[in-house]
């Protein structure tokens, strides 16, 4: 006799949700840090460095994330480096996020008018101050809608982590569904959880976008 969907099952989904949130946070924070470095290198003005970063972005944007997760989890295991499933997917998602965020921010940095950098140079400000005080604050504002949009994709994308046996929300739903034979109910709850996580972010993102559009009209 299969168990019905009850509190223990719901609790199991909640733990899955916890892992989804945790994985998203780690990947997003790591991806932001590495992505900033990627964006800065991609716009540094040194041809060779820009080229290497371009290839880095191209490789991670141009191959399936699933494949990248396989490589980190199974590929590194072959070289003798056996990683915990969470660590493996966290690395995979972080590297992938760094390429996507790096490219988003590269565009934003280049969207800041050239005159801003020139004025800063004419005032004798060095590269670090030009970036920190002038370019990045403006670039981050420009990129905020796209960055939030990427975060929403990332939350939903973490379900791919199930492929290497990591039990996050989607995988937890699959397990509970198999036990209870109530797929509609279980996946309905799972879907609602994703929605509660993602919808406010999407809403915030589109509001930022509308605001920026308004500000650029003035």
């Amino acid at each position: 006799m299969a168990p019905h969907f009850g509190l223990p099952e719901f609790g199991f989904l909640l733990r899955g949700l916890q892992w989804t949130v945790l994985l998203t946070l780690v990947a997003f924070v790591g991806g932001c840090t590495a992505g900033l470095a990627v964006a800065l290198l991609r716009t540094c003005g040194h041809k060779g460095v820009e080229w290497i970063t371009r290839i880095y972005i191209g490789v991670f944007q141009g191959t399936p994330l699933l494949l990248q997760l396989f490589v980190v989890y199974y590929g590194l295991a072959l070289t003798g480096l056996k990683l915990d499933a969470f660590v493996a997917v966290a690395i995979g998602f972080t590297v992938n996020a760094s390429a996507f965020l790096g490219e988003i921010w590269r565009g934003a940095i280049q969207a800041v008018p050239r005159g801003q950098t020139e004025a800063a140079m004419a005032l004798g400000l060095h590269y670090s101050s030009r970036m920190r005080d002038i370019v990045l604050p403006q670039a981050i504002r420009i990129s905020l809608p796209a960055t939030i949009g990427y975060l929403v994709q990332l939350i939903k994308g973490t379900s791919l982590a199930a492929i290497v046996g990591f039990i996050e929300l989607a995988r937890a739903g699959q397990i509970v569904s198999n036990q209870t034979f109530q797929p509609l109910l279980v996946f309905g709850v799972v879907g609602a959880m994703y929605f509660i996580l993602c919808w406010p972010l999407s809403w915030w993102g589109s509001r930022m976008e509308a605001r920026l559009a308004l500000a650029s009209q003035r």
Partner: protein
Amino acid sequence: MQDQILIEMKGVQKWYGGYQALRDVDLTVRKGEKIVLCGPSGSGKSTLIRCINRLEAIQQGSIVVNGHRLDDSIKAIDVVRQDVGMVFQSFNLFPHMTVLQNCTLAPIRARRASKSEAEAAARKYLERVRIGDQAEKYPAQLSGGQQQRVAIARALCMQPKVMLFDEPTSALDPEMVKEVLDTMIGLANDGMTMICVTHEMGFARQVADRVIFMADGQIIEEGAPDAFFRSPQHARTKQFLGEILAHH
């Protein structure tokens, strides 16, 4: 020391790819001199002043600013930029900072001034360009003329030896041109060394010690404003003045 040389350009050549933007330019600017650069668009006048603070690199020749030879080293560029202020056609104020922050950023970062020191100096210069009451506002809240006066104050806060003006009134509505020119005239009267790229010939007549005419990347002709406007020597200068003065 009225004769001290502040800027000396010798045999300066600059290319953009295959296009030669500056051809064998020689220019000497003494302390306190006011120079107006004019010429048709694409004649290289903006490029010339942008070479002085190394916003553009040159391929041949030499530029010496206040005794420091400008080369590719970061140190040389730094030293020169400390001495040279610049005002742009499109203002280029930092939109995410208040007027006061626009003026204090460079002194704090590049001159290691304390915040209170920098703010006191900034308020003094903002008063001087008659915009002291707008210090807490953001650039977008100001008119074009006010923004350009802030840009002048921002440059002055670094206590430059020379001020470069790159068509400072070209992006302004006509009714705001005067307030910016008046500010520049005030600056000139205070003895600032200035190089102005501008088509404001009234301004040139009033403050310039020398007017320089450029075409095709070369200095074609130069002279004191009276002689320059009354009896230009070269055909190109005559043609240019004819075109530009017809509208005034």
